[in-house]
């Protein structure tokens, strides 16, 4: 693992009218690092990801990917520079088969014969081979998550963003996912947003906690888990919801 940064944001701000969803975020990630991003509902995690991938143009601040200033770039240009994202609500080609979905991703990086092979390999790896001919729109949520993951990994991006990948998964699917994330992190930098603490414990080392759009804490997972203030922002949120 080198010490060079694959991703840095400086004073990143994203506002929607009066709401500041991302608030002055200075974030950096090393090449090949696995980072978990935690935070209560509405903390701005997904919005942060959307800024990184050009789905939203930040209100101010800069985003650098391997030294290139990608602030305000088009999504496809950012992606082609080496970012892959599994979105919180899976974005898939619903009307076509699992295989066709994954092949379309593999085809970005590979010539025709290789793309077929790569797609089959990714289906195997993500445990969806038996669903190859099924229409993606008809799958269960956990299966859809795995298909989207296969699509992201098929492009072998050096930076992988995973937004709540474990949601809707069965125990087995979760185990497979944890292994996959750890394996991916051996060759790429990965940021994982997740609410499932058991899952987080299995994969996390260094953790960033978001609250109200800003970075609240950055520390090793053990430290975060025993941090009173962190527990409170989570509990506070739950109290809000209960009220």
């Amino acid at each position, binding site marked *: 693992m080198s010490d060079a940064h694959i991703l840095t944001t400086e004073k990143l701000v994203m506002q929607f009218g009066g709401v500041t969803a991302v608030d002055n975020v200075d974030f950096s990630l090393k090449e090949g690092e696995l980072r978990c991003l935690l935070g209560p509902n509405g903390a701005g995690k997904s919005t942060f990801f959307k800024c990184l991938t050009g789905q939203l143009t930040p209100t101010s601040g800069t985003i650098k990917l391997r030294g290139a200033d990608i602030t305000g770039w*088009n999504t496809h240009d950012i992606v082609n520079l080496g970012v892959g994202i599994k979105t919180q609500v899976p974005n*898939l*080609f619903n009307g*076509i088969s699992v295989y066709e979905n994954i092949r*379309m991703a593999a085809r*970005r990086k590979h010539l*025709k014969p290789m793309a*077929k092979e790569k797609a089959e390999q990714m289906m195997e790896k993500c445990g969806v081979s038996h669903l190859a001919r099924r229409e993606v729109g008809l799958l269960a949520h956990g299966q859809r998550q795995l298909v989207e993951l296969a699509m992201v990994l098929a492009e072998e991006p050096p930076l992988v963003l995973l937004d709540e990948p474990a949601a809707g998964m069965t125990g087995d699917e979760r185990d497979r996912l944890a292994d996959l994330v750890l394996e991916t992190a051996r060759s790429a930098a990965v940021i994982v947003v997740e609410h499932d603490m058991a899952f987080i414990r299995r994969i996390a080392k260094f953790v960033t906690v978001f609250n109200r759009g800003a970075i609240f804490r950055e520390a090793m997972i053990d430290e975060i888990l025993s941090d009173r203030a962190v527990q409170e922002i989570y509990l506070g949120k739950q109290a809000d919801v209960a009220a």
Partner: protein
Amino acid sequence: MEKTLAKDIGFWVMLGIGLAVMFIGPMVWGLFEIMQITQYVVLSVYALSLAYIWGFGGILSFGQAAFFGLGAYTFAVASINIGETTVPFALSFLLPAAFGAALGYFMFYGRLSDVYLGVVTMVVTLIFWKLINHTAGPEYSIGAARLGGFNGIPSIPILNVPGDAKAWLDPAQMFQAFMGILIIVYLCLRLIIASDFGRVSVGIRENETRASLLGYDIRRHKVIIFAIGSGIAGMSGAMWATYQTFIDPNAFSMEMSAKALVWVMAGGVGTLAGPILAVILLQWLSLKLGTMHILNNYFILGAILMGLVLLLPRGLLPSLRLLAERLWHLGRQKMDASAASRKATSDV
């Protein structure tokens, strides 16, 4: 695992029917019928232009007539000036395609939403219609061709054999040439749809966000799709112009745009054969109704259309397909059941 074109039965059936009609038609039909069916062929090409961009690119255009008219006028002006029809015919594809690319660039790179896209295409058609209507005076001419405003352009040359300006096609030959064009357009579109480009188009139709998150440039893709559709619509305009030897601003009318929408919707969005079927059926119907003079033609057609949309919301072809599949399964079940009962009785 991939469904290739070569293995698609529907494709071969369509090709077979097309070739059979093309070669056998002129032997069995009289002049009047040939003329009538030629009209269906031209309008089928026109319908395919929208069937492609809407069904396989997710672009809903309310202004397909803009390109139809542009192609028709391009052909008329060019053929009157040049004195032969091959180059003008090529231009009737190229010019509308180029215009479509330019308009598409403005719309897709400007990130117009679907609703605005519909409005823009409609307004562009209206502008053409207005403009061309105001060209009645003799000062509005391009070379030897007077645009003629609302009077239209008469005496447009009949299609000639490429390279021989004096060898005009007779109605049967024109029918065959047009059938040939329809088959080629159908074939090319099927090939495009089956290609990687076509698969990505379907991906964009299904989920634009995912397509761009995979790194595909949606805007560029859509501009190309739109330009191809515009070129085909323009070519069908040229076919219309040479078939009638006359063209007037109605080529640019809202009615012409609406017809394309109706055919594609009635035939089934996401199919190519469906809209062709709809052209034949609905044009034939309106012809029959027109000769009966009982009720207003448009009234009855409108009623039929509403019925179609309500009863077969997915369109003619997909519904027929579904029906065929059901019957097939029912037949299989019956056969299985009778086989089973025979077995049961023989066991006793």
